[in-house]
């Protein structure tokens, strides 16, 4: 074990111990923004952790006979069944080649598949920047020194819901019918 490694280990231990010793920073925690760094078509993006209800490695999706844009099939998570959509297709970048992660949306009962997961960052408000030409919300976040466009899930979920309602013609036979119920519950819980 080299000297540098010893020093790194000591720093980690001190930081770990200090986290127990420091007082709670209420204000800072309330204004903090948790983001999830992901990778779509090889490019970095970010999702607001507050918009998600879960993150899980991808598994084989159950096929579902519907022609909704970006619908990959049905996904199961913690005993629930969600319609699985291709996040890359939803943001207009075409179909994803090999999605390896699922993110469960909190606002609606649906799962989003994407290619790569880079990590999670807790950011201060100063790291949230307005960016007009970025995809999604028009916001970008600085994660680890690099800017990532922040994808705004509410808009995407709204468009998916509208399309599903148009496709089903008002009956509740589609996958969106249960999702609507779950969404109501989810919204109530929020």
């Amino acid at each position: 074990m080299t000297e540098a490694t010893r020093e790194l280990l000591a720093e980690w231990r001190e930081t770990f111990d200090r986290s127990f010793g420091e007082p709670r920073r209420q204000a800072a925690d309330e204004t903090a923004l948790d983001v999830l760094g992901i990778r779509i078509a090889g490019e970095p993006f970010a999702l607001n952790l507050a918009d998600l209800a879960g993150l899980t490695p991808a598994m084989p999706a159950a096929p579902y006979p519907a022609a909704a844009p970006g619908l990959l099939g049905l996904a199961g998570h913690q005993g629930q069944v969600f319609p699985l959509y291709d996040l890359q297709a939803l943001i207009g970048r075409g179909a994803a080649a090999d999605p390896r992660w699922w993110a469960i949306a909190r606002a609606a009962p649906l799962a989003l598949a994407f290619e790569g997961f880079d990590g999670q960052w807790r950011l201060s408000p100063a790291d949230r920047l307005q960016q007009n030409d970025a995809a999604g919300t028009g916001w970008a976040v600085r994660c680890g020194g690099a800017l990532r466009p922040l994808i705004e899930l509410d808009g995407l979920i709204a468009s998916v819901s509208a399309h599903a309602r148009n496709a089903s013609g008002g009956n509740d036979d589609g996958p969106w019918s249960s999702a609507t119920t779950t969404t109501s519950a989810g919204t109530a819980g929020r």
Partner: protein
Amino acid sequence: MWTFGRKLSVGFALSFALLLLIGILAYRGTDAMTQTSYQVTHTHSALSHINKVLSLMKDAETAQRGYLLTGEEAYLEPYRNAVANVPRELAELKSQIRDNPAQQSRANQATAMIDGLMQLHKERIETRRASGLEATLKSVSLGEGKRRMDELRAVIGQMEDEENELLRERAREVESTASTVRTAIVWGTVAGALLVLVAALSLSRALSGQVGTAVKHVQRSSAELQAAANQQAAGARETATSMTEISTTISELLATSRQIADSAQRVVGIAEQTAGLARGGDGTLQAARETIAAMRRQIDLVVDHMLDLGRKSQQIGVVLDLVGELAEQTNILAINATIEATVAGDAGRRFSVVADEIRKLADRMTASTKEIRLQIDDVRGAVNTTVMATETGSKAVDAGARQFDDVAATFAKIAGQVVTTTDAAREIELSTKQQATAVEQLNVALSNTAQASRETEASSGQTSQTATELAEMSRDLLRLVQAQPT
């Protein structure tokens, strides 16, 4: 093309034939003229006999008349002469004209007349002697004698005319023959002169042409011969000089050969010393071979250790994969815990802090895992490089061992070759001595060759002089043939 000799032969042959023809014609003409001359003489002889017979008959008549008139016996002498000679003359005349039948007939006719006349003369003489003058005159007055004499004169005149005609004919023959001979001589001479002129012109042209060309060729050949002789003389001089130089060089070579013999003796001594050293170096080579074998074993040991290290690094990598997987799952759990804490609102905020700390630990663990993986990869790369380098070193050691074996074998061969070298050096020494002897003999032979070259040079000088004389003779001959200087 006609050669000069052929032209000469043909010219002489034609001249000879012409001369022979002229000679034959002249001989034949002369012979004919001689025959004609003989015949003319014969005719003249016949004419002489005719005239003689006529003269004797005139003498006999004149004598008979004188006796008849005088009665004296003295007048009868010519008569008696005629009686005695006329038959002989007639016989000779007949022999002369026996080739002419007409003359023969006339001669017989004249002989009969002469016999009659002679008989008449005899009868009158006997009448005069017996009866006297009167009876005789009476008989004479009858004119029988005159008539018979006139007839005889006529026959003899015919004979003379015949003979004269023969003479004229012979003269014409002579003239014809002489004319033929003259013609032959004149035309033969002209033809001979023309032939000689043509032959002279042809031979002159041949002399100035063919012979002149040949002489010029001889002249050129003489010049070339002279040049060749001069070149040969120069070559002989150079050869003699070179032989002298070679002789000097060979003397030096002789001295060098003796030095080589001495050097070969020294080489024999050094080779023997080298053989002893080679035998001593054999033990050192054996010790070095054992050292190389020990090195080879150590290298094999290092390779085994390195391969073991590589396997253990691989195992560490597997363990690291486990740790990385655990860190990733911990991270996902921490993220989901944060999400759950966020959903829990204020109640979950403290839990969110703990979850964030867990996530940080997981991040650090992932980062450390990646760093360790890099180091492990470095170690495995270094191990692979070391193994390959060691294997290369092992191969190099093997190659060195083989080369060392080769060196040892070469040393053994060198030891054997040193013995061979010693023998060869002894043979060189012996051969060099033999060579020195041969070089001395060669030196003598070269001296003889140099002498021969000098003699060749002298001979070439004589040849050159002869060629010069030959060229001079050719020029003289050409001058003689062409009558002008070249």
